């Protein structure tokens, strides 16, 4: 894999981890609990991060880019649905705006950005190389250095979302408009 494509995928993993950390930051700092659609958008971000992770671990391959695109399209569908719920003036909103846009609008834009990033990485993966070498299918390479750090950060924040979902919603369905944590109410 060219170093530029590897850097792009590492930035993808780091960016997704950063977005998920910022979501946690807003949740705890502003005491705004994520709604079911918000959580599904977080799931979609983890799916995108998983695709970037596959590229870093096993080399740049069409399957991995397909994984990222599926995650981004699923996220765009969830975020788009959320935007449409509040698009008509007077229909309210969910959560505080950040730089003038609500989180679900940012999510929608970020999923579009991921799709654009995949297009760029695909072009960089195939450009100027012989047909048989378009995608690098080298043997799996273990993570090292900064790549290991961002990969473990993404896995950690994904598992933190498991804990957060259990604490907030338990093992059933999340409240449409959550105001308290399910588990904390049990004590």
């Amino acid at each position: 894999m060219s170093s530029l494509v590897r850097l792009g995928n590492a930035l993808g993993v780091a960016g997704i981890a950063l977005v998920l950390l910022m979501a946690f930051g807003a949740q705890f700092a502003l005491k705004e609990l994520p709604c079911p659609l918000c959580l599904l958008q977080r799931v979609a971000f983890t799916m995108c991060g998983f695709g970037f992770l596959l590229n870093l671990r096993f080399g740049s391959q069409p399957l991995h880019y397909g994984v990222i695109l599926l995650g981004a399209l699923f996220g765009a569908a969830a975020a788009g649905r959320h935007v449409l719920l509040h698009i008509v003036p007077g229909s309210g909103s969910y959560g505080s705006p950040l730089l003038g846009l609500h989180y679900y609008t940012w999510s929608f834009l970020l999923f579009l950005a991921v799709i654009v990033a995949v297009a760029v990485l695909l072009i960089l993966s195939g450009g100027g190389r012989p047909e048989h070498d378009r995608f690098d299918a080298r043997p799996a390479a273990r993570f090292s250095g900064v790549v290991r750090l961002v990969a473990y950060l993404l896995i950690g924040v994904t598992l933190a979302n498991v804990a957060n979902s259990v604490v907030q919603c338990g093992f059933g369905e999340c409240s449409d408009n959550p105001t308290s944590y399910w588990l904390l109410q049990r004590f």
Partner: protein
Amino acid sequence: MTALLFLVIGIAMIAATAGRRDIAVGLFGIGVIVSVLWLRHHMTDPLVLSF
């Protein structure tokens, strides 16, 4: 239920890190299917889009 979705993707990431790509991609596939079904389950409110 949402915790389960995060868990499936999280385990897929760990499997990928351990070099088990087939398991990782399989888990991702399951995660996508369940996520789409869960999104459909939550799309209950009618959209007010009459301008």
